């Protein structure tokens, strides 16, 4: 009797479990298929995008009139950016697939820069036509490689989920067709010579030249430690650990970690080997209650910079985040702001200590021998170029880095349209509107976060 009941219960249990297991299995499959479909879509979109791109570059080349070039180049630009985003959706991050993305990015940059230019005044040069031809050929190569992969995928019903699993498990599966196919694509692209892109691309990727503008002798570890302690306000008894940069770094630096034995307070700093400039430092701790005002903190930050020998810096932006203040300083020379030379200083609003510092931008753009051109336009002429609805409140001259990565002298106008504040830069030489920046308004707190 009891045995019968137990058997009955167990039987129901087994049946229930089986049913549950089946449900789970189905759900899992549904999700897998969903994820797979997303990958498939991205992949097929990508190959389709490359097809279009190739054709479009081809028709751009064939265009006789330079007038119709601009819309066509804009189209190329749009297609590259779409292809770029499709690549980003494929599970290939752990595969060396950068070259292809970089290639797309370069086509995008090239087409953008040429499309926004006034081609009537400055038509495509011979070299640029050459570049376009080369791009045409290269996109054709990629297209055909991708088509091969696509064919194999469709022919053999290959699944991206397998790729993902293969990559995740770290097993180098030599027979994974998709991975192999993409490796071939990647190889094809890396075969292209950088110089194909002509002089326009020399400064496309911001190459770091080991902070070439910094002058000074190379410091040793001991000097670096002294500098670190001075900047971060640690005394002689603090524990110090110094490491040098790895081979992969663009520039030589010492990483120093300093720890106060009594309080346990720890700070980290990177100092360039050349001339011993701090690139950044963090002296993190909890800041509980605000005791000093943002303005006092501002003075402390300015004093800190002055003490450490930074000259001609002017505050340009100050912001309070909870109980810390962040101050952005830029160089001013003869009342001209040099925006690329910016240093940020973070101050704790309880005791005014400096808890963060970043000067990477500053060190990269630092240039004592910078020759600032004389403006060709007067400020009135420049002012006439801005939107008539724009109410100018402040104006000055400033050097900024423009879209083409060049430093240009501009008139800077700060003012309002309606309720919003804008910063507009008009090139002081040729009157081009180099940049229009909408200043950020405070953002509403939607909900108490944590």
């Amino acid at each position, binding site marked *: 009797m009891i045995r019968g009941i137990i058997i009955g219960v167990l039987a129901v249990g087994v049946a229930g479990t089986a049913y549950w297991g089946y449900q789970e299995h189905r759900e899992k499959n549904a999700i897998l298929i969903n994820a797979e479909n997303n990958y498939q879509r991205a992949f097929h979109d990508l190959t389709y995008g490359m097809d279009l791109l190739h054709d479009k570059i081809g028709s751009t080349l064939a265009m006789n009139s330079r007038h119709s070039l601009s819309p066509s180049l804009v189209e190329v630009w749009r297609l590259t950016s779409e292809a*770029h985003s499709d690549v*980003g*959706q494929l*599970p290939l*991050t*752990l595969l*060396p697939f*950068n070259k292809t*993305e*970089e290639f797309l990015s*370069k086509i995008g940059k090239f087409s953008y820069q040429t499309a926004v230019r006034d081609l009537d005044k400055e038509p495509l040069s011979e070299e640029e036509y050459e570049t376009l031809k080369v791009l045409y050929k290269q996109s054709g190569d990629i297209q055909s490689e991708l088509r091969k992969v696509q064919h194999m995928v469709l022919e053999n019903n290959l699944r991206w989920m397998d790729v*993902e699993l293969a*990559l*995740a498990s*770290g097993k*180098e599966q030599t027979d994974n067709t998709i991975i192999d196919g993409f490796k071939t694509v990647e190889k094809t692209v890396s075969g292209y010579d950088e110089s194909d892109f002509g002089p326009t691309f020399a400064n496309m990727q911001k190459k770091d030249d080991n902070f070439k503008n910094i002058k000074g002798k190379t410091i040793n570890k001991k000097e670096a430690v002294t500098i670190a302690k001075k900047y971060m306000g640690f005394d002689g008894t603090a524990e110090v650990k110094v490491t040098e*940069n*790895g081979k*992969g*770094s*663009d520039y030589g*630096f010492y990483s120093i970690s300093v720890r106060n034995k009594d309080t346990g307070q*720890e700070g*980290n700093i*990177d100092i360039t080997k050349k001339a011993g400039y701090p*690139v*950044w430092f*963090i002296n*993190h701790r909890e800041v509980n209650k*605000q005791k000093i*005002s*943002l*303005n006092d903190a501002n003075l402390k930050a300015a004093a800190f910079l002055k003490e450490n020998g930074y000259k001609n810096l002017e505050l340009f*932006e*100050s*912001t*309070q*985040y909870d109980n810390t203040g*962040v101050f952005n300083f830029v160089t001013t020379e003869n009342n001209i702001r040099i925006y690329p030379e910016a240093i*940020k200083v*973070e101050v704790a609003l309880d005791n005014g200590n400096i808890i*963060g*510092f*970043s000067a990477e*931008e500053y060190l990269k753009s630092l240039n004592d021998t910078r020759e600032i051109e004389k403006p060709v336009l007067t400020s009135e002429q420049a002012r006439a170029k801005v939107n008539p609805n724009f109410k100018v*409140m402040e104006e000055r001259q400033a050097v900024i880095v423009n879209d083409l990565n060049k430093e240009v002298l501009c008139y800077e106008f700060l003012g309002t349209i309606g309720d919003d*504040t804008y910063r507009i830069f008009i090139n002081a030489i040729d009157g081009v509107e180099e940049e229009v*920046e909408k*200043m*950020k*308004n*405070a*953002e*509403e*707190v*939607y*909900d*108490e*976060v*944590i």
Partner: protein
Amino acid sequence: MKKKIVKWIIPLLFFLCIMPFTFLESNRVFAFSNQVIQQGSVGDDVIELQSRLQYLGFYNKKIDGVFGWSTYWALRNFQYEFGLPIDGLAGTETKAKLVKASKYNKQFVKEQINKGNKFTHYGGVDQKKQSAPQPNAPAKTPAKAPAAKAPGPKPAAPAPKAAPSKPTAANTPGGFSSNDIQLMANAVYGESRGEPYTGQVAVAAVILNRVNSASFPNTVSGVIFEPGAFTAVADGQIWLTPNETAKKAVLDAINGIDPTGNALYYFNPATATSKWIWSRPQIKRIGKHIFCE
């Protein structure tokens, strides 16, 4: 030009009208603390500054406790009108003038903020008419503040619920919304919550370096959700609730601190499964992570 004159004249007339009251009640004025208030500040003094400027009709945006650009221009207009040096700083002299010229009903303002009401603080208008309870649906915003004699009192945007007497808005760095920051904080927390603070800043910096790199998607969300890019995304740890430290780390990274020396990849040598990652040129090690080109 004409418009400009009108804009100055009205508050001036207005100010003259309320002058007598001001002097009568000057003894019960709630004054600022003695800090110099500068752009970017957050807090009670800013709420008072905005309320007073609104009382005089210089400021007609929401009283949110954040010294942003609207407050800056309002303050400068005030300084211009009252013959003070125009520096956009609320220093001793400016504050004294402001306190003398305006009234600040601290209780009223605080109450409104705490209740999350939309409200204004114009002088010469009945306070009861200047507040409206938080509407249930944010779409319903026609509850206008009575214009009456006050110059251009626009209905303030619905004030969100906030902690007692805290500013109802917050500063965010240019180019990033607080949701972007939250998303990054999630990623940083999921990836590196066991790491030292610098290690967390470093992870945030890698995300930003990828956004700027040609080889990766161009948005924060694109980088974070790129399949296979972050283990925390793959195994769902990104949806843990991040702590304040992770958020601070993200802010530091956005403010330009890059402890990694422009790294694009990092990995934990103890758990890394991909052989390929070892082939990347390494820059440095922070905590458990090795950062590479």
